[in-house]
C-alpha cells in the first residue's frame, strides 16, 4: 500500500490507533540486554500460555525496543493496566497471565522497589530512574514493535516527512533545523542546520546522506538501542535531510556486531518502501530517495567521518585530512551529510513540534535532549535520555541511584575513550557541549562510565590507552606510536617502575599527540591521560613516589593481608584461593603467604567480615 498524500497517512494513523487502543497489550523488552537475560523465552512463554488460556485473540504480545533499565531486565510492561514488571523470568509468566491479565491484580514482587522507602512502583513514571528523564528520541522505545511500520504510523510516524515534502521547501526545512539549534549528537556538536546548508550549497550532480551508526565506545549502546527500538525515526529523519540537501541516495553505516540492529533496519527499510516513504516520487512530490545499509567490520576509527567514507567506498577505513570536508567532497567525491543516529532521530520531532519548542529545551548553546548509556558502578545501569543542562550529579545520583553501598562514587568517564575523567568535585557541571569541553572531557556520543573509590585512575587511563592503541588506524605517527608509548609509560607507573621524569614525558607526549594527530581519534586520545593528570595527579604521584596504589588496584603495588582481629577463622577463604596461599585452622586467624599470593582478590571478595585488607 503506497501512501500518496498526508491526508491518507493521517486517516491510516487514525484507523490503526482506533484498532489498537482498546486491546490489552504485553510489551516484552526485545533490546539486546534483555534478550541476553532471557526475554526471548519470556515472550515465547507468553504466547503459548495465552494460546492455552484462549486469550491469544484478545491480547497482543510483542517485542519492543529497549526500555532502558537494562540492570533489571527482562522488562515487561502491560497496557492498559500500566504495570511495569522487572526481572521477569519465564516462570513468572503464568502468574502474570492469570493474575494481572485475567484479574487485574498486581504482582508486588515483580515491581520496582525504592531502595530507601521500600515502596513499590507500579508504573514506569513512578520509578526514580524514569522520573527525572525526558524521553523524546526514546519516547516510543518500549512501546512500539520496531518490526511493524504500522505501529510507528499509528503514533504519527512519517507525518513530519509528509509535512516537509508537501508544505515546506528544502530551504525552509534547513531554516527550521537551524532555528532549533540542533547540534550533532556524535560528539563534536557541529550545528546540523549549518552542515545541511553547506551541503545544499555545495555543487555536485549527486549528493548523499549518511547515518553514522558506527558506535564503538566501550560500554555505549545509545545508537544501537535507537536503531533496534525505533528504526523508522532514523529513516524518517534521513529522508527529510535528503530532501533538504537534495540527495537521492542515503546510506546507513552500521556495525556488523549489531546483528539485531541490522535485521531491524532491513525490515524497516523494506516496509518503508512498501508504503512509499522510500522510492520514486515520495508523497507524490518530485522527490525520490532510497537508503541502503552498509555494514562495517567494526573499527572504532570508522566512526570518524572521513574514515567512514573510505569504508563506504570499500577502502580501508583510514581518515584523511579535512578540508575538504565531506559536505564538499564526501562519498565518491560528492557532497555528503553525515549525521549520527541520534541526530537523525531528532529531525522528525523538530519538524513535527516546531523549532521553538525544541529550542526551549536545554541550555543557551545546547538544545534538546541527549541519550546516555549509564554504566559502571551505579545502581541503575541502562539507557537514559535527559534534557541538556542537567548536572552530572542529578544524572548519576538521582537517575543512576549512586554507587551500590558501601562504595562511593569517585569519578565519571564521559564521552567514551576519547572523553575525560571528571572527579566528583565537578559533578555540579551542567551537561552541555561547552561545559564538558572546558572541563577537558567531551560530550562524545554518550557513553558514561561511573567509577567508585575502588578504581585506580592511572589504571583507568591505562585501560583506555590500551583500547586506543589497538583501535588507532595506525596511519599517522603521533596516534599510532604516541598511544603505544603512553600505554607503556602508564604501565610502568602502574607497576611501580616509573620515575618523576616519566610523568613529565607522559604529559609532554600527551599534548603533542593531541596537537599533531591527523584525525579526531588521535586528537582526543590523550584526554583520559590529561584529565586524570589534571584531576587526580596525587594518585599518579603516590604510584611513583611512594610505590603505592591508593585505590588498591595495581597488583604490583598492593598486598593482601588478613587482619587477625577481624578474622573469625571461618575457613571460607581457604578453599577458593587458587594458589592455596592461605593457611589456618578453624576459629584461628588465617594467614596469607605473600610468596604464593597472585593477588587475584578472591579472598577479599569472599570474606564476610572484612578481615582481608589491601595494603
Amino acid at each position, binding site marked *: 500500500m503506497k501512501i500518496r498524500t498526508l491526508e491518507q497517512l493521517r486517516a491510516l494513523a487514525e484507523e490503526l490507533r482506533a484498532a489498537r487502543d482498546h486491546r490489552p497489550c504485553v510489551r516484552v523488552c526485545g533490546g539486546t540486554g534483555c534478550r541476553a537475560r532471557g526475554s526471548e523465552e519470556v515472550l515465547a512463554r507468553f504466547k503459548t500460555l495465552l494460546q492455552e488460556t484462549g486469550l491469544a485473540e484478545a491480547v497482543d504480545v510483542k517485542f519492543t525496543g529497549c526500555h532502558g533499565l537494562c540492570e533489571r531486565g527482562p522488562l515487561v510492561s502491560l497496557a492498559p493496566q500500566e504495570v511495569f514488571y522487572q526481572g521477569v523470568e519465564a516462570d513468572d509468566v503464568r502468574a502474570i497471565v492469570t493474575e494481572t491479565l485475567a484479574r487485574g491484580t498486581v504482582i508486588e514482587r515483580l515491581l520496582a522497589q525504592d531502595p530507601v522507602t521500600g515502596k513499590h512502583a507500579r508504573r514506569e513514571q513512578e520509578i526514580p530512574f524514569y522520573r527525572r528523564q525526558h524521553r523524546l528520541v526514546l519516547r516510543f522505545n518500549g512501546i512500539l514493535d520496531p518490526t511493524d511500520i504500522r505501529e510507528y504510523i499509528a503514533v504519527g510516524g512519517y507525518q513530519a516527512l509528509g509535512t516537509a515534502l508537501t508544505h515546506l521547501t528544502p530551504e525552509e526545512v534547513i531554516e527550521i533545523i537551524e532555528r532549533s539549534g540542533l547540534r550533532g549528537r556524535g560528539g563534536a556538536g557541529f550545528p546540523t542546520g549549518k552542515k545541511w546548508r553547506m551541503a545544499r550549497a555545495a555543487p555536485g550532480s549527486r549528493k548523499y546522506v549518511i547515518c553514522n551508526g558506527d558506535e564503538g565506545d566501550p560500554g555505549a549502546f545509545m545508537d544501537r538501542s535507537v536503531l533496534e527500538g525505533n528504526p523508522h525515526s532514523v529513516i524518517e529523519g534521513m529522508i527529510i535531510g535528503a530532501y533538504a540537501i537534495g540527495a537521492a541516495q542515503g546510506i546507513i553505516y552500521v556495525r556488523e556486531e549489531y546483528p539485531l540492529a541490522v535485521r531491524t533496519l532491513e525490515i524497516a527499510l523494506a516496509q518503508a518502501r512498501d508504503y512509499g516513504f522510500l522510492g520514486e516520487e515520495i508523497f507524490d512530490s518530485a522527490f525520490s530517495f532510497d537508503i541502503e545499509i552498509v555494514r562495517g567490520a567494526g*573499527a572504532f*576509527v570508522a566512526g570518524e567521518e572521513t574514515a567512514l567514507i573510505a569504508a563506504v567506498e570499500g577502502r*580501508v577505513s583510514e581518515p*584523511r*585530512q579535512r*578540508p*575538504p570536508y565531506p559536505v564538499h567532497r564526501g562519498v565518491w567525491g560528492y557532497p555528503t551529510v553525515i549525521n549520527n543516529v541520534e541526530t537523525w532521530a531528532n529531525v522528525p520531532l523538530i519538524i513535527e513540534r516546531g523549532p521553538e519548542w525544541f529550542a526551549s529545551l536545554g541550555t543557551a548553546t545546547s538544545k534538546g535532549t541527549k541519550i546516555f548509556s549509564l554504566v559502571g558502578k551505579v545502581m541503575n545501569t541502562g539507557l537514559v535520555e535527559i534534557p541538556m543542562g542537567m548536572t552530572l550529579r542529578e544524572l548519576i545520583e538521582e537517575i543512576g541511584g549512586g554507587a551500590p553501598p558501601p562504595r562511593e562514587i569517585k569519578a565519571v568517564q564521559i564521552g567514551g575513550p576519547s572523553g575525560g575523567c571528571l572527579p566528583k568535585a565537578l559533578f555540579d557541571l551542567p551537561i552541555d557541549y561547552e561545559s564538558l569541553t572546558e572541563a577537558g572531557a567531551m560530550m562524545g556520543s554518550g557513553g558514561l562510565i561511573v567509577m567508585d573509590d575502588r578504581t585506580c585512575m592511572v589504571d583507568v587511563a591505562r585501560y583506555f590507552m590500551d583500547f586506543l*592503541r*589497538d*583501535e*588507532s*588506524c*595506525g*596511519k*599517522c*605517527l*603521533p596516534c*599510532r*606510536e*604516541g*598511544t*603505544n*608509548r603512553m600505554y*607503556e609509560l602508564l604501565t610502568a607507573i602502574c607497576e611501580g617502575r616509573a620515575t618523576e*621524569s*616519566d610523568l613529565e*614525558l607522559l604529559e*609532554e*607526549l600527551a599534548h*603533542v599527540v593531541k*596537537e*599533531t*594527530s*591527523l584525525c579526531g581519534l588521535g586528537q582526543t586520545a590523550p584526554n583520559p591521560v590529561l584529565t586524570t593528570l589534571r584531576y587526580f595527579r596525587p594518585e599518579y604521584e603516590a604510584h611513583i613516589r611512594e610505590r603505592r596504589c591508593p585505590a588498591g588496584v595495581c597488583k604490583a603495588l598492593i598486598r593482601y593481608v588478613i587482619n587477625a582481629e577481624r578474622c573469625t577463622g571461618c575457613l571460607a577463604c581457604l578453599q577458593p584461593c587458587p594458589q592455596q596461599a592461605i593457611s589456618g585452622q578453624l576459629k584461628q586467624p588465617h594467614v596469607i603467604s605473600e610468596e604464593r599470593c597472585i593477588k587475584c582478590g578472591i579472598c577479599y571478595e569472599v570474606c564476610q567480615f572484612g578481615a582481608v585488607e589491601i595494603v
Partner: protein
Amino acid sequence: MTRLSINGIEVDLEQGTTLLEAAQHLGIEIPTLCFHPGLSAYGACRLCVVELGDGRLVSACTYPVQEGLRVRTHSPRVLRARRMLIELLLSICPSSKRIQDLAAEHQVERVRFSVRDERCILCGLCVRMCAEQMMAHAIGFVNRGYRRRITTPFDLTSDVCRRCGGCLYICPVCELRCQGPEAPSVVCGSCVTPAPTCPPVYGDLACYMGAAGECGTCVREPPPDPRSSDLRRRRESV
C-alpha cells in the same frame, strides 16, 4: 588566486596549492618524511605540521591554501611538536641516517622511550610508490594501531611484484643505514659521516618479501663489511 600569509610574508597562490608547496615557493624549509613530490600526499608522519592562526597544527603537505590563512612554519609549538615526533621516530628506527640527521637538525639529544629497532616508520612511501608509479599494488598495510605493518597480501610472494626495487629506492629509512660507532640506541649527535656507508646491495635491508621467503633478486656478491673497511678508520679520525 588565494592570498595568505606565511611567517608574516603575504603571498598570492593558486587554489589547490598545499601549504608545503607554498612554503617551498617562499624558500622556507619544512621537514618531511612521508612526502614525495611524485606521489600523492599522505599526511602520516606529521613532521611537516605548521601552526594556523586559530592555533591548530595541521600537516602542510595535505592542507590546501585558503584565503586569509595565517601560517607559522617554525613557531615554538611547532618546533616542540616536531622534536617529540622525531624522538618517537628515533625510538622505533634508531639506525636510520635520515632520522638521525633530522634529530641533529632539531637538537633532539636523547630518546626517553625504550628503543625497539623496527627499521620501518610506516610512512607508506613504498606502498604509494608501488601503487601509483609502478601500478603494481604489490604491497600494502595490514592490521591497525600498533600492530600495523607493511607486507604483501597474506604474506605470500606477490605475483604482481616486478622486483623493480622502487620501494627500496624511495624508503626514507632503509636507504642509508646509520653506521655510527656507538650502539644504534644512542643518538649519534650529529651525523658527520664522511661518505655513504651503506653497501650498494639490498642485503639486509628491509625486504617486504621477507615473510614469504627470499625472492632471490637481491642475492649478489657478499658486500664488503663496512665495519672492517677503512671507512671506520676515517670516521674515527673525524
